[in-house]
């Protein structure tokens, strides 16, 4: 592996670019017509325009990306997160062309992408899963399974992910009403209309475990992350370690995550997600790619996850055992999004004006924004990730509050005030919050 094509944009494209530089690898980036001035383009020695602004025609355009790799002599592709990162057909196309796809093989992506299949693998590995149904296609099947499992239930898309394609149903009426619409949504969003049911736990903690697997089959985990603060099943605040868990529970989750990674045949990095309800935990899904929230694990372990990905892709062994990993202190991450809190958090577009940015001890800022940058309607509204770390959770939490206070951006609306509300909320301060905290805060406004 000598030259990596980065098939992504925004902060993650920058992160990968810089990790490649540290690894001594050459880089080529790609961009849409709307992003010729983007930081990842300006900072890379070579960049290819691959299509018009809409992602479907640029960052998701497999043909254009592969052609760009061929033309520039790249021998590897890093897909980042989102876009093509979990697309088995893309991984397969790379393999067919002799390009190293920096991620698991296509078969593993296929396995993890089918949420019902992934549950089956976890179950076979002896990891508990939430009671649920197989893929359902008719209303009759749906009703039979719903009455067997008992309400409330989650109706989920088999090919869903990233918090999309999930709806809560409390009774038969809601189920029947939601079914047709959910099928249509699943078909248009994921190209597969199959749905399944899963038992709903009202106030769970959402805990995930970072795992790494080298091509020799050696697997370690980098501890737990808690992403209980969610909005519409999307993560807003993430912290590591997961608070309020006993050492024993953390150890059990770590071991279960390694078992799942082994069962699906993971190579590279991944995140295994669980719901924790008291002393019980249930596997929900495994994401076989780098995740937006990966920095909170990095700062505690003191290693660079993207560089680990690059090394694993080159066939290098991890080179350390689980027992050798030392976890330091506490870490938190928030996503600063360009969205309008007064209009149901719809994406906010405009020209970014930067007045002040977070910094100082224990603060890390991962961002691609620059003065005068145009926030476009085509892409994810993520502007920046603010990561703070400290010796204790409380120090880290207060540090996050200070970091957010320092953040002053105009030109686009952001979720900063909402994040400050969460960080300073007594329930969050005591880590007694559940997944509904954010909904309560936003409805309160």
């Amino acid at each position, binding site marked *: 592996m000598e030259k990596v094509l980065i098939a992504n944009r925004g902060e993650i494209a920058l992160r990968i670019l810089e990790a490649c530089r540290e690894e001594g690898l050459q880089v080529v980036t790609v961009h849409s017509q709307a992003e010729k001035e983007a930081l990842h383009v300006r900072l890379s020695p070579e960049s290819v325009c*691959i299509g*018009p602004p809409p992602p479907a025609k640029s960052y998701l355009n497999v043909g254009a990306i592969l052609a760009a790799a061929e033309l520039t002599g790249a021998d590897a592709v890093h897909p980042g997160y989102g876009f093509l990162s979990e697309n088995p057909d893309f991984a397969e196309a790379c393999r067919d062309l002799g390009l190293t796809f920096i991620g698991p093989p296509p078969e593993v992506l296929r396995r993890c992408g089918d949420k019902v299949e992934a549950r089956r693998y976890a179950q076979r590995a002896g990891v508990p899963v939430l009671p649920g149904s197989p893929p359902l296609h008719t209303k009759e099947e749906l009703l039979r399974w719903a009455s067997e499992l008992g309400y409330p239930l989650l109706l989920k898309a088999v090919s869903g992910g990233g918090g999309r394609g999930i709806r809560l149903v409390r009774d038969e009426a809601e189920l029947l009403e939601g079914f047709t619409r959910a099928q249509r949504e699943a078909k248009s969003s994921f190209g597969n209309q199959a749905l399944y049911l899963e038992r709903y736990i009202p106030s769970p903690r959402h805990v995930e475990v970072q795992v790494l697997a080298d091509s020799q089959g050696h697997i370690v985990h980098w501890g737990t992350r808690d992403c209980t603060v969610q909005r519409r099943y999307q993560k807003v605040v993430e912290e590591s370690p997961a608070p309020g868990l006993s050492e024993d529970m953390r150890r059990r989750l770590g071991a279960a995550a390694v078992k799942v990674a082994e069962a699906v045949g993971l190579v590279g990095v991944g995140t295994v997600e669980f719901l924790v309800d008291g002393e019980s935990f249930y596997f929900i899904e495994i994401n076989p790619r780098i995740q937006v929230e990966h920095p909170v694990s990095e700062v505690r372990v003191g290693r660079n996850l993207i560089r680990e990905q690059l090394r694993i892709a080159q066939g290098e062994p991890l080179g350390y055992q689980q027992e050798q990993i030392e976890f330091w202190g506490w870490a938190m991450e928030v996503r600063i999004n360009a969205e309008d809190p007064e209009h149901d958090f719809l994406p906010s577009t405009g020209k970014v004006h930067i007045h002040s940015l977070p910094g100082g001890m224990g603060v890390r800022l991962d961002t691609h924004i*620059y003065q005068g940058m145009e926030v476009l309607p085509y892409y994810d509204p993520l502007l920046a990730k603010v990561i703070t770390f400290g010796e204790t959770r409380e120090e880290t939490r207060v540090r996050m509050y200070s970091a957010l206070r320092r953040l002053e951006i105009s030109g686009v609306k952001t979720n900063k005030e909402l994040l400050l509300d969460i960080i300073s909320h007594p329930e969050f301060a005591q880590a007694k919050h559940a997944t509904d905290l954010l909904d309560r805060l936003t409805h309160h406004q």
Partner: protein
Amino acid sequence: MSFDIEFIRKLCALLREEGLSELTLVDGERRLTLRREGGPAPPPSREARPEEAEEEGHLIRSPLVGTFWRRPEPDAPPFVEVGDRVEEGQVLCIIESMKVMNEIRSDKSGVIQEILVEDGAPVEYGQPLFRIAPS
């Protein structure tokens, strides 16, 4: 609304802060336009092609990423030369992408003024290939 000097000063600041180049306020009969020379320095562009905007003519741009070929086969004559008259729909070149030869056709009738890419060179999406004087 009174157009006093303090108010105008505030508007000037707003113009600067928001990176606007012009601002017009209308209040009944009165009308105030503030215009700023220059504006914020644009970030350096690696792909600025000033000739694109400044010169006359119609540009044929590459609809995909690939390799630019002027001939149907290595030994064949080029599809078009500078000075040739072309009709709308006529093949101008081939863009090879992922081993597939894609014929690129003219979307205007006119005369080829300039061929902007070397034979065999890589091209990106939207890159100008030909300049045509429409007629």
